[in-house]
C-alpha cells in the first residue's frame, strides 16, 4: 500500500500505467454504455406513472453521481497534494475540473428535461437542484481561479484550498432530499435497502453508471498524460519519448 503511494509520486509511473489501462477503459466503457442505452431505451418496461420519460434516468443518475464523485476525488487530491506535496494531485485537479463541470451541466440539463414532463416545470429552487447548480458554479470557480493566477505553484495551492472549502456542498447535496421538503424525490437506490425499482430498470441503470465512470477514468488518464508531458517536458524520459515520436 505504501509503495503504491510512493509510486504515485512519479509522473512517469502514472503515465505508463495510464497508457496500459486506457484501451481497457475505452473498450469497457463503450460496451457498457452501448448495452446500457439499448437496454434502457428499448427493453426496459414502461413506468406505470411516467410512461417513457423515466428513461432519462439512465443518463441523469449516472451523470449526477459522477458529478459528485469527481468533486470528492478532487477534494481528496487537494488534501493529499497539500499534506504530501504530491505533484500528480494538482495534475488530477486541473484535468478533472472541466470534465466535472460538463458532467454537472449534463446532470442539470437531463434533470430539467425529466422535470418538465414529470413535474410540469424545467426548474424549481428546491434544495437538491439548487445545491447541484452550486456545484457547477464551484467547478467553474475552480477553473477560473487557476486561470487567474499566473504562477503555477501559487495557483495549485489556491485551487486546492478552494476545492476543499467547496466540498461542504457534497453532503448538502446528498442529504438535501432528506432534510428539506424538496420537489426532487428521495433516493431510490441506497447501499442498505433493496432498490425501489424492478431489476429490469435498475440493472441497466447500474450498467450505465459503471459505463460513465469508465469513460470518466479514460478521460482523466488521457488528459493527465497530456498535462504530465507538458510539466515533465524537460526530463530525460519525456525527451527520449518525444524523439521516438518524431522519428516514427
Amino acid at each position, binding site marked *: 500500500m505504501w509503495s503504491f503511494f510512493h509510486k504515485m509520486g512519479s509522473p512517469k509511473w502514472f503515465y505508463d500505467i495510464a497508457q496500459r489501462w486506457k484501451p481497457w477503459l475505452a473498450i469497457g466503457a463503450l460496451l457498457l454504455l452501448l448495452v446500457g*442505452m439499448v437496454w434502457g*431505451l*428499448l*427493453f*426496459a*418496461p*414502461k413506468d406505470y406513472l411516467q*410512461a*417513457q*420519460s423515466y*428513461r*432519462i434516468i439512465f*443518463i*441523469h443518475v449516472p*451523470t449526477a453521481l459522477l458529478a459528485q464523485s469527481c468533486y470528492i476525488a478532487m477534494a481528496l487530491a487537494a488534501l493529499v497534494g497539500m499534506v504530501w506535496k504530491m505533484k500528480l494531485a494538482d495534475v488530477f485537479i486541473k484535468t478533472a475540473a472541466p*470534465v466535472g463541470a*460538463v458532467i454537472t*451541466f*449534463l446532470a442539470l*440539463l*437531463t434533470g430539467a*428535461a*425529466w422535470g*418538465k*414532463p414529470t413535474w410540469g416545470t424545467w426548474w424549481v429552487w428546491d434544495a437538491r437542484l439548487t445545491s447541484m447548480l452550486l456545484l457547477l458554479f464551484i467547478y467553474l470557480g475552480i477553473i477560473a481561479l487557476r486561470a487567474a493566477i499566473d504562477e503555477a505553484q501559487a495557483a495549485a495551492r489556491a485551487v486546492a484550498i478552494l476545492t476543499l472549502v467547496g466540498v461542504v456542498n457534497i453532503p448538502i447535496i446528498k442529504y438535501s432530499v432528506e432534510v428539506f421538503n424538496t420537489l426532487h424525490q428521495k433516493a431510490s437506490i441506497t447501499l442498505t435497502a433493496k432498490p425501489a425499482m424492478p431489476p429490469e430498470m435498475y440493472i441497466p441503470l447500474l450498467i450505465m453508471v459503471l459505463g460513465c465512470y469508465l*469513460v470518466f477514468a*479514460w*478521460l482523466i488518464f*488521457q*488528459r493527465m*498524460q*497530456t498535462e504530465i*508531458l*507538458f510539466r515533465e*517536458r524537460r526530463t530525460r524520459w*519525456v*525527451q527520449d519519448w*518525444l*524523439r521516438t*515520436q*518524431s522519428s516514427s
Partner: protein
Amino acid sequence: MQFESLAAFIAMDGQGFYIWLSYGFFLVCFMGLVLAALRERRLMVAQLARQMRRDALSRKPTAAHTETSQEIL
C-alpha cells in the same frame, strides 16, 4: 422490445422531445470531451517535439561561427 415501430420508438408516447434532448446532449458532450482530449494530446506532443527541435538547432554551432572563432585564435 417495448416498441412496435421505429416511429413509436422516436415518439416515446409523446415524450420523445425530452428523452432525445437528454440523450442527444449526453452523447454530444461525451464525444466532445473524448475528441478534445485526443486532440489536446496530439497538439501537445507536436508542440513539444517542435520545441525540442528548435532547442537542438539553437545549441548546435554553425560552420560560420566555427571559422570565425578559429580566425580569432
